[in-house]
Structure formats: structure tokens, C-alpha cells
């Protein structure tokens, strides 16, 4: 019986000790709802976030290493699965920097009704509509856009070159995409209103979206898909990206979204330097290394930064 009491005491002590451990690990992450315990001054800690897909994590890692090279301490909060979550985190200061795509950011989180299409228009709209503590830095020329991509056999069978060519045949085809594609203006909704294109069926695919979509596309389970344009498998599978003359998809330049109080001039300069050097081919190469060669983000980021002279 005494052993039970002793063990109970030990257990309670262990619990308390572990609570302390658990508490400590939380202190590194500031309370995002107040976002207050942050010094925006140089040498302070900057929190860099990323969305839940490889390109976003790679870009975030590049930002992180570029900042660290200039003497900043960086806390990484990568792989956040919902834009609503990470956007709200930036607004409240829980995240200080996150790589965004200007067109997507505008219509999903800032102004759903915006019709801005070019990079300049989109950035102007963003600057006007973002909350005061939040801002965008310079956009990079590097762009990764949504697209309507068809597999080789569908392209040749119906002689498809542009999205408008789909109008006559889409009723026999299935298109795949992440589930939000169904209700987005830059998705099925816009396809119908801008091009008059309505597919027979929409197949939502969320698990490992891009990779799964390519696989389904190459097996012809779906004939068309929303594939991001920097994807290396487009070339290897001989997929065809359809032209978008009516601008269904707005500009999607890689653009850092920042929480201004925590990112001082020096940090902004470091991030702008990255944006200046980043090209669309770079994005393709980065994705190739990650998805085909299975290299990790840290390695890929490091080699890009050293080759750009920023690491």
C-alpha cells in the first residue's frame, strides 16, 4: 500500500515537472492573439510562416536563411494548412513574414470582389485594402500561377490550345482541383462566367493535391486539372497548359506579406533582395529538386541563396 502512495507522489511530481517542460516550449512562440512581446528592432526575433505545400515551405526557408544571414533570429512556423489561419496570424502579429502570391492573397483574404489582374493593379489593390499593420514588400518576377492544364491525349483529341477551346467539349470532361476551386472566382465560377466553360464533373482532391492531381491526370481519370505552373511534372508528362487570354487567373507573383511592426528596414531590405533575384525558372528548379530529387527544403534554400549571393 505504501508503494502506491509513493508512486502517486512520484507521478504527481513528474506531472508537474513535465508541465514546466511543456510551458517552456510554448514560451518560444509568442501569444499570437496579443502579438505584443516582440521587438521590431534589429536583432529581434522574426517569425516566418509558410503554407502547407512544398513551394511555400521552400520560399519561407529561403526568407528565413536570408534573414539569418543578416543577423536576425528566426522562429519558423511552417506547414500551416489553412490560409485563414496564417492570414489571421499575420494580422495579429503571430507571424511576421510569409511568402504569398499576390493575386491569390487578394481575392481569397482581402477583397473577394476585386477584378485586378496585372501585378501592378493587384499590388495597388492590396496596399489599399490590407489592414494598417500589414503590408506587402516588393513582388518578385517569379510567378507560380494556377492554370487549366490538360493531359496530352485530351489536348490532341480536341485540339486544345486555349481555355476558350474547352467551351465545346468540357461537358464530356472531368476537371480536378483542390476543393476550393469549385467556388472560387479564379476557379470554376470564373470559368463559367468568363469563358462559358462548364465541365461534366469536378473531382476535389485535397490529399497531396498537386501530386495526386498529376497522377490522376496522367492516368486520364481526369482530363483537366488546376496545376500550378512551376510544377516540373508538366514537362515530363507532356501536359498542356491552356492559354488564358481572358485572364481567369490574376497575376500570382511571389510577394512577402509582412506584419510591419516586427519587420524593420534592414529585414525588409534582405527580403527585397531575395525577391529581386528570384525568377520563375528558379521556382521550377527548386520544385524539381524537392519533388523529384527528394532534397529537403533547408538544402535547396541554402544552395539557391549561395548561388544568388545572398547566403
Amino acid at each position, binding site marked *: 500500500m505504501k508503494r502506491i502512495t509513493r508512486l502517486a507522489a512520484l507521478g504527481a511530481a513528474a506531472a508537474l515537472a513535465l508541465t514546466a517542460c511543456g510551458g517552456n516550449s510554448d514560451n518560444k512562440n509568442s501569444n499570437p492573439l496579443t502579438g505584443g512581446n516582440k521587438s521590431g528592432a534589429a536583432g529581434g526575433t522574426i517569425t516566418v510562416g509558410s503554407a502547407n505545400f512544398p513551394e511555400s515551405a521552400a520560399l519561407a526557408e529561403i526568407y528565413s536563411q536570408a534573414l539569418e544571414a543578416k543577423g536576425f533570429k528566426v522562429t519558423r512556423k511552417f506547414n500551416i*494548412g*489553412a*490560409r*485563414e489561419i496564417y492570414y489571421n496570424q499575420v494580422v495579429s502579429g503571430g507571424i511576421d513574414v510569409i511568402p504569398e502570391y499576390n493575386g491569390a492573397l487578394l481575392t*481569397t*483574404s482581402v477583397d473577394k470582389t476585386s477584378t485586378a489582374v496585372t501585378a501592378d493593379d493587384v499590388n495597388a489593390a492590396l496596399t489599399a485594402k490590407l489592414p494598417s499593420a500589414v503590408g506587402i514588400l516588393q513582388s518578385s518576377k517569379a510567378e507560380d500561377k494556377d492554370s487549366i492544364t490538360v493531359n496530352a491525349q485530351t489536348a490532341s483529341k480536341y485540339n486544345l490550345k486555349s481555355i476558350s477551346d474547352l467551351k465545346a467539349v468540357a461537358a464530356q470532361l472531368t476537371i480536378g482541383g*483542390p*476543393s*476550393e476551386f*469549385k*467556388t*472560387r472566382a479564379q476557379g470554376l465560377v470564373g470559368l463559367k462566367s468568363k469563358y462559358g466553360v462548364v465541365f461534366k464533373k469536378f*473531382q*476535389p*482532391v*485535397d*490529399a*497531396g493535391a498537386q501530386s*495526386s492531381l498529376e*497522377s*490522376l491526370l496522367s*492516368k486520364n*481519370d481526369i482530363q483537366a486539372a488546376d496545376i500550378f505552373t512551376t510544377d516540373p511534372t508538366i514537362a515530363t508528362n507532356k501536359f498542356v497548359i491552356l492559354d488564358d487570354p481572358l485572364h481567369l487567373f490574376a497575376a500570382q507573383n511571389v510577394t512577402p506579406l509582412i506584419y510591419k511592426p516586427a519587420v524593420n528596414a534592414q529585414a525588409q531590405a534582405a527580403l527585397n533582395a531575395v525577391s529581386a533575384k528570384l525568377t520563375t525558372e528558379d521556382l521550377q528548379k527548386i520544385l524539381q529538386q524537392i519533388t523529384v530529387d527528394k532534397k529537403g527544403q533547408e538544402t535547396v534554400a541554402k544552395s539557391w541563396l549561395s548561388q544568388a549571393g545572398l547566403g
Partner: protein
Amino acid sequence: MNNFFNQVQAVADWLSSSAQWHGEDGIPHRLLQHLAYSGISLFFAALIGLSLGLLIGHTGRGGFLVVSLANFARAIPTLGLVVLIFNQVGLVLTPVVIALTALAVPPILLNTFEGLRGVDPDARDAARGMGMTGWAVLWKVEVPIALPLILLGLRTAAVQVVATATIAAYVGFGGLGRYIVDGLARNDYDLVIGGSAVLVVVAIVVQLVFTALRRFIVSPGILGQARRS
């Protein structure tokens, strides 16, 4: 707190809008899909769990195997299994059914086994004394006595499967999980909460159904004895 009440209001609005009750994305259709995925998996799990549990419980041998198998199956992360099989086979229901079946077998297997082991040896002896063969002992004596625990196992499994069948939506299928996955993807928070609310109600109903089933299937004599749960 204001935020909380706004949230409840938003969900109530979503539930009461008529669009939610018609068509492919309406609650009835999604519910039917959800129950279909759950039902198929539960069926296979019951097939495996009940037959193994009855066999091993009746013969009394291989108890260690049963417990080990159940523990092993319960340790498999459902997300990992679904994603792995999906990665290999693509857009078919197989990953979902296999993962949900793996989830449901342990409670059914363990409870069936426990139920049969818990049968009073005197009852078995009496049955044999009356001249019953092994088969008859199993079905006329052991199973009726073990029924409360067997049903408990089925009930636990059913609730778990219904709650986890949301994963089907993650790999491109329908079901109530569709609201959660879509809501997440579209930043439509109300959709996530609304879908979850419906799911909780369904899980509660499933529990009640099995509890009611107990009253009808288990013989009154046993019901009186089994006070537990």
C-alpha cells in the same frame, strides 16, 4: 464570448438554409455517403472481429494473439494508412475502407473475446451436461450471455468509424467530411463547424440506436444481470 454566440448563430443559419438540404452537396446526400462508407467498413470489421472473437473466445486458445492483434491495429494512425494506400492506388474507396476497418476491428474483437471469456464456466458445463455440441453451446449459451459486451464492442466501433469517416473527403470522396475539408479549403469557418455539428448529432444517434438494439436483442434475463454500461 460574443464571438461564440455569433458562431452558433452562423451555424444555425447554415443549417436552416434550404440549399443545405437539396442536391449533391446537401446534407441528406452527404449523410447517405457517409453512412455508406461507415457501413461497409463496419460490415467488414464485424466480419473479421466477430468471427475471430467468437472462435478464440469459444476455444479459449490464442487469447494473447487476439490482444496483440487488436493493440497493433489500434496503433495504426488512420491518416497515415489512408494517405499511404491512396498514394499507391489513387482515387478508389479502398484506402478509406481498409483504414476504417482497421480502426473498427479492435473494439469488436476485444469485446467479443472478453464477452465469451466472461461466460460463467458453470453455464458451459450445464450446457454440455445437457448434451449440447460445441456449436450449440456457442450459439445457444455463450453468445446470448456475451451479447451485451459484443454489442458494446459494435457500438464503440460504430461511433469511432462514423467520427473518422470524415477522412474519405480528404482523398476525394464525399460524406460529411466534405464540409470540413471544403470549409477548411475555402476559409469558410461556418461550414467546418456546421459539418462537425451534424457529425456529432449522427454519432449520438448511432450510439442511441445501438443502445436501443441492446434492449431488443439481449434476453431479459441477461439484461437484468449486466448492470455495466
